[in-house]
């Protein structure tokens, strides 16, 4: 039974690789503003709570969010929108001032620099 599951999953993952566009496992990396481990928790949690997002890690020094998501189920813009709504600016969307103000102290990333 378990073997069967493995075989099926393996087949699925090969099928993923063979897709050219609208991949089931689209991999990308975007810039998300933030500072600390609390931001890391919030950003990855927000990303992963979007349907279709399979994998999300946010690197503190580079502020890069690496995502693997099912492009048929979710659009990268929607993921970015959700992250912005949680308080973190992305390259496409800015968090509202109100949400930004509610972030804990360590997460008050420098917004001045972003607007340069």
């Amino acid at each position, binding site marked *: 039974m*378990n*073997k069967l599951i493995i075989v099926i999953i393996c087949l699925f993952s090969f099928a993923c690789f063979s897709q050219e566009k609208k991949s089931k496992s689209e991999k990308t990396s975007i810039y998300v503003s933030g500072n600390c481990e609390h931001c890391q928790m919030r950003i990855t949690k927000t990303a992963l709570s979007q349907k279709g997002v*399979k994998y999300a890690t946010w690197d503190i020094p580079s502020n890069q969010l690496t995502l*693997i998501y099912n492009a048929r189920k979710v659009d990268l813009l929607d993921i970015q929108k959700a992250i912005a709504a949680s308080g973190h600016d992305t390259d496409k969307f800015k968090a509202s001032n109100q949400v930004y103000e509610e972030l804990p102290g360590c997460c008050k990333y420098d917004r001045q620099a972003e607007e340069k």
Partner: protein
Amino acid sequence: MKYSYLFLFLSLSLNVTAQNVFEGQVHFFDDNKNKQPLEGATVYWDNSSIGTVTDKSGKFSLPVSEKFKILVISYLGFDTLKQHIHNYDNQQFLLTSNTDEQLDEVVVSKQKKTIQKSYFEAQNIVTVNSAELLKAACCNLSESFETNPSIDVNFSDALTGTKQIKMLGLSSPYLLITEENIPMIRGASQAYGLTFTPGTWVESIQITKGTGSVVNGFESMAGQINAEIHKPLSQPTLFVNVYSSVDGRNELNTHFTQKISDKWSTALFVHGNQRTQKNDKNNDNFSDNPLSKQINLLNRWQYIDAEKGWVGFANIRYMDDHKQLGSLNFDPSIHKNSQLFWGSEIDTRRWDSSLKIGYVFPELPYQSLGLQMSYSQHDQQSYFGLNTYDINHQSFYASFLFNSIIGSVKSKFKAGVNFMHDTYDEQVVLDSYKRTDYSLGGYFEYSYDNLDNFSLVAGIRADSHNTLGVFLTPRLHARYVVAEKNIFRGSVGSGRRIANIFAENQPLFATSRTININSQSDGVFGLNSEKSWNYGLSYRRIFNLFSRPGDLTVDYYETHFQNQVVVDWDNYREISFYNLDGKSYSKSFQVSLDYELWNNLDLRLAYKNYDVKTQYNDSFKQRPLLAKNRLFGNLSYETYPNDNNALWRFDTTYHQVGKQRLPNTVIYNNEFSDSFSLWNAQITRVFSNRFEIYVGGENLGNYRQPQAIIDSDNPFGPNFDSSIVYGPIFGRKLYAGLRYTIL
């Protein structure tokens, strides 16, 4: 992480060949103020999703666009560089290190805890790292737990000097002890196996309370202990450890490591120990600890190809151990098989080999495959007075594991199969026993983590075993966090095993007891296999008191046996094995407190209470030789390192062991042992990263169990018994040693 950017860049670069490309090179100054290229630095356009990492020569190239003006270069340990780019000519960048400041910060504010309790995991896991292991300088895995309140270290008998471990009130046969997740201390090695892994080889130990994961089999009933051995890739080129103690024990450990290529590295671990001096501090004409000699060799090969996602380990190991124990006048060449002097020799030879291969899908970092295979051969030949005991155990183990996700990394699963094949050949006095056990099992373990306050691990395995039949083993662990500081955990799970009655109770041979097996079924030795359920609750509170961090943990676990092989020592003329007919349980309660009293001064306190009762033939009573109450304290202090990394380390451990029920013998009749305390201390002087020396003492209070051997004057008479041991035989023991490392 690094490769995900690379991947991103590769995919981008295919699309942007027609565009302009901005190229540059990143450098840093090394310790000798030489300019060096910086590999692996992250380079990206600010506010964009376009980034890359620098190659070996520090070079990178990025597609350009009108929109992107600010370039960001970052690397851990360096100040992040943000620079406005005006023209796209090839440019040079220099990162400045911020490590000096950072190191200071780390040292002052946060030192890595040497014992870490799990926070995110659903299971109740305590991780002991190598710095903690150094606190008990001697000698092997059995002693590695002396500074840890989760495990109790006991003495197994009055002659062999072997220590036995207990967890949640149950002895090591009820724990699954693995080495790098391969079942290790089981079957024939149950009695002395922990002394066959030198302490310096161990990188870290993970202790799971409760039945633990289903991945490594069905045999864990009260807990799992996994020891990780040092990996060739992260080992210094040479490590030497010399140890000597006043009881005449000398140890030498040398580790050699060689990096063969980018992908291959190998290490050779050589261990030797011997005790050439007979000690008799309690004047019973028997050696307090054995004469011994051990050679132990391990060769490891490690393969890693991070880009393609392959990792592998191959290990081969050989161990030869000789012990001689008994009367001071015993000379094996003359007195073996005679009744002039009582003596014993235990010779063990063991081969181990294992192979591990892992593959992480480079595009899907959450998905991996693993294969483990191991083969071991354990051969023990021994006699205890006139009792012969030989055991040969060959074991083959194979396991295949697949890890992936369901939907997202919040829901993960592990699925796999394992196969185990064991052959035993035992010669017990005049009887011989042969048997083969084999089992094939499949498992599925699901874990869920909401990345916040709740996680769960639910596993089930189905096994088909030649004597246990077909059965299911379910196990569940859950964690719930309230306000980031209160961690609640619960677990429930079952376990099964076959009792290897002779291998696990070898002290019986050094007695005049007759062996009585009350065969009632057609199982192994005519006894039923053992089956139990374990459930437990744990609460951990992380707090700050007087602005210093602390940690309070309360654990309560119960193990209930449906079937058990009862080992009855209460008739002093015999030892009986029979099937449990009634109740048998172990209830354990533990409170432990960790608190930083002052900078670098750490206190660890624990109180443990065990209620372990079994239905014996005559009555329902407490299991013998187990202290109902135990107190534990550990205080450690480390000075700040100076410029050469020189420092002092002080460590002291206190155990208060409560009274223990003693089996009825000629001298004990429904009695309890005295409560006693043990005091250990150690001072280490680190001169540099390369060299350190240590001195220490065990049992500084010099407590000795009176009359450890019953009727030692008449070892061939009917009352002789060396198995009723509840405390140390040898009093105060002082030792000294050194460690030398070439990085």
